[in-house]
Every structure is written in C-alpha cells, then in structure tokens.
C-alpha cells in the first residue's frame, strides 16, 4: 500500500497500513479529495464534497489510533453517502431542485452515526437519480452520473454516484439505497460489489423515502470482504424510529471464510431474458466456476416473476406519489421531467391495484421461499445488458429494441418485492471493456451465506482487481 495506489486498497489492507504506520488516514483522505477534484467534473459522482470536515475527521481518527483507541476495521476509512440520507449540518438535496435551498439536516441518519462511531471518515454526498426515482442517474440538476469505464455510458442508478465513486477510486466504500435495484444496478454496471440486505436490516431512519415497503439501505464496495465489514457495522443496532431488525447479528467478516463445497445453488433461468450474448457467456463461465468450487447447481424458473414489473409499479408508484403529492401539486415544474412523468403515471394506479400488488408480493415470496427451501442461494445475471449509452434511448438485445430504463430493473426488483437479501458481484467484461455482473439472493437474514458464496467466487476470479482510468474532462479554453 502506498499513497497513489492505496485508493484501490481493501479495507483490511488500508487498516494494516494505518496500524503499521505506513499510511495515515489523513494522507489517504487527502489522496481521495485530490482525485475527486481531478476527475469528478467528468463523472458527476458527488453533489457535495465535505473536504474540511473529512480532513478533521481523518486527523481525529489518526490521533485516536496513535493513542491506542482503535474503533475497529473501518477506523480512518473514507466513505461517501448517497445524498438521500441525512448528515448533520449538510443539506440533503435528493438530487432535486426542490430541495436545493432546504435547511441543513439537524442530525445524522442512524446509518451515518453507526459509521462515524466506527471511525469511518465521510468524504461527501453522492449524486443520484432525482429522489431515487429512476434507474440511470440522469440528473438535470447536478449532471448525469457517467460510468467510470466509459464516460459516454450510464453509471446506472439510482445510487449512481455512490457506485461510480467506488469504481473510480474516489472513496473506499459508499452507502446507497435500493427500491427496485438502485444499489445493485449501478454496482453491476460500474464493476463493483453492492449488497441489498434483508428488508429492514439497515435502518432507514432519516433517509428520504421512495417507497416505504420496498426501500433498503446497503453498502457498495470493491470487494465482498469489504462489504462484509461495512455490513457488520451498519446492521448492528435496532432503532425505535425505524423498524430495523432486532436479531443477533453474525460477524459477516467471519462468515466469508467458510467453505462453499457442497452448497446447492439454483440458477434462475428466464428472469433476465432477453440477455445480451456477452452477458450470457460471462454468466455461464461464472457458473462453471461455481461448479469448480464444489457447489451443486440446479436450474429453476419462477413463473410469477414475469409479473414483477407490474407488481413493483402497483406498490412503488402510489407510495412515491403519496410522499410527493404536495410538491407535485404546487411545484410540479421543479421536478426532473422523467420523475414528474412517473409521478403522473402513479395517479393511474387504483387502491385495488395497490392492494393486489401487496397480495401478489406474498405469491412471489412463497415461490422464492420454495426454491430457497432446497438451495443455499439463487443466482442470475444482475443485468441483462452492459451499461447503456447516455445518448441512446433504446437498447438492442438480441432481436429486440427495448427502452433502457425498463431493462435494468428486470432482475433486481424481484428481491425488493420479496425482501430477500441480494448481492451483485463482477463476473466479467464485454469486448468493449464494460463490466458484467451476477446476482446472488438468499434466505431472509441469510447474508452470511451469500457473502460466503460471493467471496469464494471473487477469490477464484480476478474481475475485482481491474480499475478504470478516469480522465478529467478536457477544459475548453475561454477566448
């Protein structure tokens, strides 16, 4: 680990360097701040960079370590947080013009306070699709988040800034939210790891809601081992103000070390179809790696999942409209056009549709539970396509031309509807160099098994060791 290359170090590597005296949290934080300054005009990953407070926090972390106060693996580790989540003294914009002049938050969200207590250093707040209501992270107010692997392509969303920042080496990890895939979609398209934990396992306190019954909070990291360390910190306390779970939390970092030989894994066919041939090929190779690791594979299908788009719309849209109704009525032209159109569509959903959507979720959940009664995890591609171009509306997959926004949630929304935990892990690159990923989903509160399988796969492959080389936007000289 050395300053310059350490921006891509793992949490364990950086922690060892801090404790050996080879690197200080201040040097590392300064290195990230310099890189954000250098490349974020190209990426638009950050809405607000908290340089002064980050350096103060880093100095405090360094001082504590020097004086024998060790807060654990995240001590001194720089992170970023989606600007949908409150940070004391900082405005939460949700990527919207509507909140650009809103008062600063009076306290930290619970997830932020857990990370601060663990000694993590907050670098700033990341860009997103406005109010998290869209899967691409286009944003007319703060700039479209670009994909670090090709600036002409989408990062995915809605936690696009959080994923792009991790992929580009602008922070060690970040926190996102996921309502139909908003952690896993950008993590997959940017070539990093994203975890949507079991519903309710991470507090949603002081997080602006999109859909109360579908929203999840979780980490985006470069490795599965890092995800385990972050998850351990953010799931550890139940709060009165948010229904996070009150169960005995396992040490996820320990759980990554277990053996996977003999585990049964269900390959979910059909959910992603139609699939880009390069994605299909990379996924098949990944499954052969699972077999080489000793896992037993069975192929399953989930017929009711064909309705997951309708079920998600019937539930999500009315809940989003309920939250935004007043602003939609009084300040509708301040919404981004696509978000306003989605909220308008929500007015077409009846009360009966909403209740039937919530009933249909039980059917889906029972079907997923039935599969999980026989296997340890379900696996499928995270995305049927690689990151689409920003300047193209439609994506050609096989013989079909499809709207890009409708494709990217196809494999992810199912597990928001059922509340099962899911993780996305890189599993290849296209010929054009764009990331491809697989998704593993498991039993409720079964994060440990998912992390174990994902870590075993990542340890057997090298995809996570590739990093993009982001060039700063060329500045046009003024005449």
């Amino acid at each position: 680990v050395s300053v310059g290359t350490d921006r891509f170090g793992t949490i364990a590597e950086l922690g060892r360097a801090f404790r050996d005296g080879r690197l200080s949290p201040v040097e590392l934080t300064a290195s990230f701040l310099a890189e954000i300054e250098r490349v974020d005009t190209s990426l638009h990953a950050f809405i607000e960079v908290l340089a002064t407070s980050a350096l103060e926090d880093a100095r405090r972390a360094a001082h504590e370590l020097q004086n024998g106060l060790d807060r654990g693996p995240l001590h001194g580790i720089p992170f970023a947080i989606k600007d949908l989540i409150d940070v004391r003294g900082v405005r939460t914009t949700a990527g919207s013009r509507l909140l650009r002049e809103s008062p600063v938050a009076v306290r930290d969200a619970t997830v932020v306070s857990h990370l601060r207590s663990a000694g993590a250093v907050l670098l700033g707040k990341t860009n997103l699709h406005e109010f998290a209501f869209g899967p691409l992270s286009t944003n007319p107010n703060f700039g479209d988040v670009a994909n670090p692997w090709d600036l002409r392509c989408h990062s995915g969303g809605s936690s696009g800034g959080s994923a792009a920042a991790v992929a580009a080496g602008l922070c060690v990890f970040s926190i996102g939210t996921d309502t139909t895939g908003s952690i896993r979609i950008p993590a997959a398209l940017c070539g990093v790891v994203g975890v949507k934990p079991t519903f309710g396992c991470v507090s949603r306190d002081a997080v602006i809601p999109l859909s109360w019954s579908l929203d999840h909070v979780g980490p985006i990291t470069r490795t599965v081992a890092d995800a385990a360390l972050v998850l351990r910190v953010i799931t550890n306390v139940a709060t009165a103000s948010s229904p996070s779970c009150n169960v005995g939390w396992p040490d996820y970092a320990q759980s990554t070390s277990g053996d996977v030989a003999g585990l049964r894994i269900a390959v979910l066919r059909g959910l992603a179809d139609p699939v880009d041939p390069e994605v299909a090929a990379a996924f098949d190779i990944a499954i052969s790696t699972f077999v080489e690791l000793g896992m037993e594979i069975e192929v399953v299908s989930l017929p009711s999942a064909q309705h997951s788009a309708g079920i998600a719309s019937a539930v999500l849209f009315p809940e989003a409209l309920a939250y935004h109704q007043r602003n939609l009525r009084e300040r509708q032209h301040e919404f981004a056009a696509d978000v306003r159109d989605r909220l308008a569509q929500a007015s077409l959903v009846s009360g009966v549709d909403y209740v039937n959507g919530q009933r249909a979720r039980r059917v889906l959940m029972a079907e997923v539970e039935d599969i999980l009664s026989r296997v340890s995890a379900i696996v499928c591609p995270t995305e049927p396509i690689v990151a689409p171009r920003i300047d193209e509306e439609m994506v050609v997959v096989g013989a079909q031309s499809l709207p890009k926004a409708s494709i990217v949630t196809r494999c992810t929304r199912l597990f928001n509807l059922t509340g099962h935990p899911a993780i996305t892990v890189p599993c290849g690159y296209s010929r054009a160099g764009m990331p491809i990923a697989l998704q593993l989903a498991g039993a409720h509160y079964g994060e440990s098994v998912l992390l174990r399988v994902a870590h075993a796969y990542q340890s057997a492959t090298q995809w996570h060791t590739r990093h993009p080389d982001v060039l700063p936007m060329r500045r046009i000289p003024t005449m």
Partner: protein
Amino acid sequence: MKSDRTDVYRAQLIDDVNTPRDGSKSSADAASSFRRSIEALKYLDLEGVEPIVTFQPPLSIR
C-alpha cells in the same frame, strides 16, 4: 370544492400520461407499458392471499 380541484388535477396528470410533453415515442411506450404491466396483475391467482402490509399492534401483554 377541494375535491373538484383534485379531480381536475388528477385529470390533468392522466392527460399528461396519455400525451407526454416531449411527444417522444419512448415516453408514450413507457406509459402504455406501465398500464399493461399493472393490468396484467389480474391474471395472477390471488384467491385467499392477504396483502403483505398488515396491521400489527405493538406487542404489549397486560
């Protein structure tokens, strides 16, 4: 009076969905696809299935 205004507002939203302001095919397709996906829920067999959100009073046995 208030409900009249709400009806007008809702009618305007529905009109906007049917004729997206940017007039693009993709917006119209998205609106049409949205309606179809919701209508398709009627093909699911929901007989005897309760909604996932049910009221659960805080447990406090006295």
